[in-house]
């Protein structure tokens, strides 16, 4: 019975891993890139200058701007700049009839001169961030699909652990240059050695959308009134309604200092002002996510905007909210400094590699059985095409996204949308290429092309902007230089991979065939 159980789990691991592997590879790779989304945005919008962070000044600038532009808005939201994201983001929601949600408008301001930042329009790193959980699908379908994929990932991880008989014995085992054996060793290595991260990232992604995908307990416990649940858990959403009497909003920097005092020197990340022109204006100050590991959803200090009266301070977190917040915080990694952020990135790449090697092994094992016939059965050919397109194709798409950013004219109005289109067009073309070319050729050509695109990024940067490596390294602009250098290193890695792929085409099949014949002759 024990044998049967392990075999069943192995079967489940293999099939769940295959069917969702292509999607999960894309989610993991774009998610991993998201850990550096601010740095990617910085490279993609080199016009935005970084400044020393001065919260009081930024807040004053934001308040002035919003007072001029949207004094009668329903809501203002101000996101203060931090060391990684230098933009001062102001958002405002138009006031509409009660019950209707007004449009959101936003602008990025330069905190030193209070002007709107003139930078090329681009989604920047936000594109990868949003894609990895929304999958470019209409709301909320993308989130449902990505969360379901996360559940399958969880299943694949657990079945993988159950299936891996010698998980402790083979803990340090990695035998390169042994064909399929090496791929499996590699899959096990990046899987087992980085397992705490994989389990954390997978379960936390379920927790992040749990109110959407598992609403049953909310509805059962609150008699269908989900709003009551959210008001309890997120007290910031509980605001006094507008009285209809105009009032003058106090200068926000003063309230800011009071909020910080509540948190013993913690940082304010975001400020939301409801009904700013009303006498019942409420100012909600949210703590910066980077302050702690455990994300505190309820952490808000609320003031009356006109009198400055402290309305509420959020309580200590209970254990369940600590656990949920812990998962959220660990997934986002807002608290991570530069070194830890790189470690997150490496762990994410390991997860991506785990999925990728799994897909390669799935096909490789079955290809061996059909090695004698020149024609691959349709199902295997389908898997081969999807493997190529979802892995090397995605890499080409990412590089193309960066190329589009530098090549599209800066003043072109729809350039942001076109950068995204370029990503998907490149991905689609690589799928087509994978269909038309034979397996190994497609791999070599796509990996080689991706290598070329990535390695040329620093050169492209030098030719199209004044922020090339020579400048960024001297100035200490590590985000800009780091991006160029990482692209260079990635390109070099892909070039090596392409070269290895090409070499493999020749030796193996011939070496294996003469031996069986020889043995047969000896037996006779």
């Amino acid at each position, binding site marked *: 019975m024990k044998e049967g159980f392990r075999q069943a789990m192995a079967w489940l691991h293999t099939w769940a891993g295959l069917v969702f592997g292509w999607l999960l590879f894309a989610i993991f790779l774009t998610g991993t890139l998201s850990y550096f989304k601010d740095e990617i945005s910085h490279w993609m919008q080199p016009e935005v200058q970084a400044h020393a962070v001065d919260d009081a000044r930024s807040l004053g600038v934001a308040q002035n701007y919003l007072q001029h532009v949207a004094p009668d808005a329903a809501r203002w939201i101000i996101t203060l700049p931090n060391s990684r994201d230098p933009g001062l983001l102001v958002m405002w929601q138009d006031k509409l009839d009660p019950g209707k949600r007004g449009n959101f408008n936003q602008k990025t301001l330069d905190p030193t001169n209070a002007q709107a930042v003139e930078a090329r329009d681009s989604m920047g790193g936000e594109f990868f961030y949003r894609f990895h959980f929304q999958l470019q699908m209409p709301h909320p379908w993308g989130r449902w699909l990505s969360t379901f994929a996360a559940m399958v990932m969880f299943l694949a991880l657990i079945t993988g652990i159950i299936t891996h008989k010698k998980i402790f*014995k083979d*803990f*340090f*085992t*990695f*035998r*390169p240059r042994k064909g399929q054996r090496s791929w499996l060793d590699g899959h096990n*290595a*990046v899987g087992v*050695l*980085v*397992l*705490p*991260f994989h389990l954390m990232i997978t379960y936390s992604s379920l927790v992040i959308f749990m109110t959407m995908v598992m609403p049953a307990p909310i509805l059962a416990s609150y008699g269908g009134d989900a709003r009551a649940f959210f008001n309890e858990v997120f007290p910031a959403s509980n605001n006094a309604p507008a009285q209809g009497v105009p009032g003058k909003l106090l200068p926000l920097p003063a309230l800011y200092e009071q909020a910080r005092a509540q948190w013993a020197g913690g940082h304010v990340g975001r400020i939301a002002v409801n009904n700013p022109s009303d006498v019942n204006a409420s100012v909600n100050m949210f703590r910066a996510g980077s302050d*702690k*590991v*455990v994300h505190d959803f309820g952490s808000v200090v609320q003031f009356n905007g006109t009198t400055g009266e402290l309305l509420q301070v959020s309580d200590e977190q209970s254990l369940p909210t600590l656990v949920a917040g812990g998962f959220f915080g*660990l997934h986002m990694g807002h*608290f991570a400094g530069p*070194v*830890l952020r790189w*470690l*997150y990135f*490496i*762990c994410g790449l*390991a997860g991506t590699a785990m999925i990728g090697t799994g897909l390669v092994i799935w096909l490789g094992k079955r290809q061996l059985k059909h090695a004698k016939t020149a024609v691959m059965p349709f199902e295997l050919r389908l898997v081969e095409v999807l493997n190529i397109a979802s892995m090397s194709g995605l890499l080409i798409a990412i590089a193309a996204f960066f190329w589009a950013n530098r090549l599209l004219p800066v003043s072109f109005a729809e350039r942001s949308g076109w950068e995204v289109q370029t990503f998907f067009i490149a991905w689609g073309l690589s799928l087509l290429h994978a269909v038309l070319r034979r397996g190994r050729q497609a791999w070599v050509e796509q990996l080689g092309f991706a290598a070329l695109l990535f390695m040329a990024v620093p050169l492209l940067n030098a030719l199209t902007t004044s922020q090339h490596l020579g400048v960024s390294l001297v100035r200490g602009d590590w985000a800009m230089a780091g991006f160029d250098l990482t692209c260079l290193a990635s390109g070099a890695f892909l070039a090596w991979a392409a070269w290895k792929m090409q070499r493999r085409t020749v030796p193996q099949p011939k070496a294996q065939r003469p031996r069986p014949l020889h043995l047969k002759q000896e037996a006779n």
Partner: protein
Amino acid sequence: MLLALLMCYAGFTALCLATDRHHGELLHSKPSPRRRQGLRLAGWALLAIAIWPAVSADGWALGLVEWCAVLMLSALLLVLLLPYRPRLALILAGVGLLVSPVAAFAAL
């Protein structure tokens, strides 16, 4: 985090040497039961004690996260080095242990 990294890497190397297969590959001999026990004890001890520098520098929450990250990355580094540069892998562990007191002193 550097001290924690050095300790974790050395700890994993010790645990690796405690297995027959890898001890044979790296030191070309079979480990005696006493040596195996000693290596295992030293290995686990190093991994556990590595929590201390991370937590004392950055608090429990951040410290534990850093320790976990360093644990995973040091294991990955060791396993990737072993088949290609086994001697370098061992030397790094030795150097790491020697440098640890210096790193500890620098962190104080």
